[in-house]
């Protein structure tokens, strides 16, 4: 337990550092899926490990041990999780869960808002054109989603580039990229270490849509030109400063499109899969260790109780504390020890 409970935490840190870098080179569709799996598994591993650490630490507090009818001393000797480690874990866990709750509520609000906005856009078809000079284009997820493009954007693109733009936004909607984004957003809320994954993920989704568009129009150069021209046109127009957040992504996309298509790579995926397996294994082993530990601490407590009981029986009979706990031969709890048995014992 002492080692295995830290494995998911370690794997999370390693992947939070390596995965965003590794995800930029392979084919974007596979990279997006890999990043989503990484975010989900490590977030569960992270929260699970924190919960186990907090639990084993707090289980050693005598009052808690008394409530749970296990031996604090037995726990302490077998698995020394210091109270400060437990307290930090509990705090991190509480903060992670609270922030996850807030992020989930916000996400739901955004999805509801986007769906309503889909209905309010002009027309009832896939494409909604906004009669506006400022070049803008985005996909609004919904059921079905809408592609929203301004007149200014359409005017600054050539015929093939216009098709590339539509194919790009269509790829976002059709492959449900907003679900990927939600996964990264929520997992980053639960564990701030995973934030770089969300950043890399956003880039990978754009690359994915670029590659789909390139396959659709049959030319990577056309898509590169569409992306570049749209970005330059949008930069030329007056834009609110609040949006200046993701610099550098557009030139990278254009560069990737002007280069040959990404070659299939297996090494990063295999390494990632191994690390995620390790994370799951660590968590499972820590959980089962922790369960065994509590079981044995319960047996230790029971044996101690039985010893004390014997002593009490010799001395004063019928002391108050025997009242709330039925007198039982100690083999009922200290010997073979099924779940039903435990239930009866605790009642």
């Amino acid at each position, binding site marked *: 337990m002492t080692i295995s409970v830290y494995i998911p935490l370690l794997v999370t840190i390693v992947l939070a550092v390596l995965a965003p870098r590794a995800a930029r080179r392979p084919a974007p569709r596979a990279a997006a899926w890999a990043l989503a799996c990484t975010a989900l598994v490590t977030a569960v591993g992270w929260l699970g490990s924190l919960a186990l650490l907090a639990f084993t630490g707090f289980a050693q507090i005598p009052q808690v041990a008394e409530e749970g009818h296990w031996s604090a001393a037995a726990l302490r000797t077998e698995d020394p999780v210091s109270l400060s480690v437990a307290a930090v874990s509990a705090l991190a866990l509480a903060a992670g869960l609270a922030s996850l709750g807030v992020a989930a509520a*916000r996400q739901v609000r955004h999805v509801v808002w*986007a769906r309503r906005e889909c209905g*309010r856009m002009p027309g009832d078809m896939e494409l909604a054109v906004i009669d506006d000079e400022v070049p803008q284009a985005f996909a*609004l997820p919904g059921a079905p989603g809408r592609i929203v493009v301004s007149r200014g954007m359409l005017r600054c693109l050539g015929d093939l580039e*216009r098709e590339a733009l539509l194919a790009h936004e269509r790829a976002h909607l059709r492959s449900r990229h907003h679900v990927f984004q939600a996964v990264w957003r929520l997992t980053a809320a639960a564990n701030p270490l995973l934030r770089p994954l969300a950043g890399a993920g956003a880039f990978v989704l754009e690359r994915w849509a670029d590659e789909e568009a390139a396959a659709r129009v049959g030319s990577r150069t056309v898509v590169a030109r569409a992306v570049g021209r*749209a970005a330059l046109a949008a930069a030329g127009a007056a834009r609110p400063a609040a949006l200046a957040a993701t610099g550098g992504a557009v030139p990278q996309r254009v560069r990737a499109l002007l280069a040959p298509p990404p070659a299939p790579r297996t090494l990063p995926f295999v390494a990632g899969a191994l690390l995620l397996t390790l994370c799951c294994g660590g968590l499972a082993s820590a959980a089962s260790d922790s369960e065994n530990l509590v079981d044995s601490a319960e047996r230790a407590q029971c044996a101690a109780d039985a010893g004390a009981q014997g002593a009490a029986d010799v001395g004063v009979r019928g002391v108050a504390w025997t009242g709330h706990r039925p007198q039982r031969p100690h083999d009922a709890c200290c010997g073979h020890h099924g779940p039903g048995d435990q239930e009866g014992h605790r009642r």
Partner: protein
Amino acid sequence: MRDGRSGESGSAGGRRARGELESGVLAVLWSAEEPLTARQVLERLPGDLAYTTVLTILSRLYDKAMLVRHPVGRGYAYAPVRDEASQTAVQMHSLLERGSDREAVLSRFVSELSQEDEQLLHRLLGGQDAGPGDDGP
């Protein structure tokens, strides 16, 4: 990437393709300076479409009140229904100015460029980018 779209046949694929064609035709009309005939729309749409397909889509969009038309020769020239005065553009600006919070659900085609990005882009696109030249009439 190409194998991903092999399952697009069938009636669902047909419906989807029709929706995509409508988008393409509407985008062509919005990008043009003046009303276009079906023939002109066909010329600006990539891929080899049938003239009648374009006609069908144009009349469907006209029925949906997305387009206006006036007679030219034996046919019509089509233009999108402008709504500059409407709330939609204003609405979109306020939507986009909400900042990163609402950005959460939007997938923008392009993000903001820094000064260096802009220079880098010009260099990357090199001689290829000479303004929207291939869009002329």
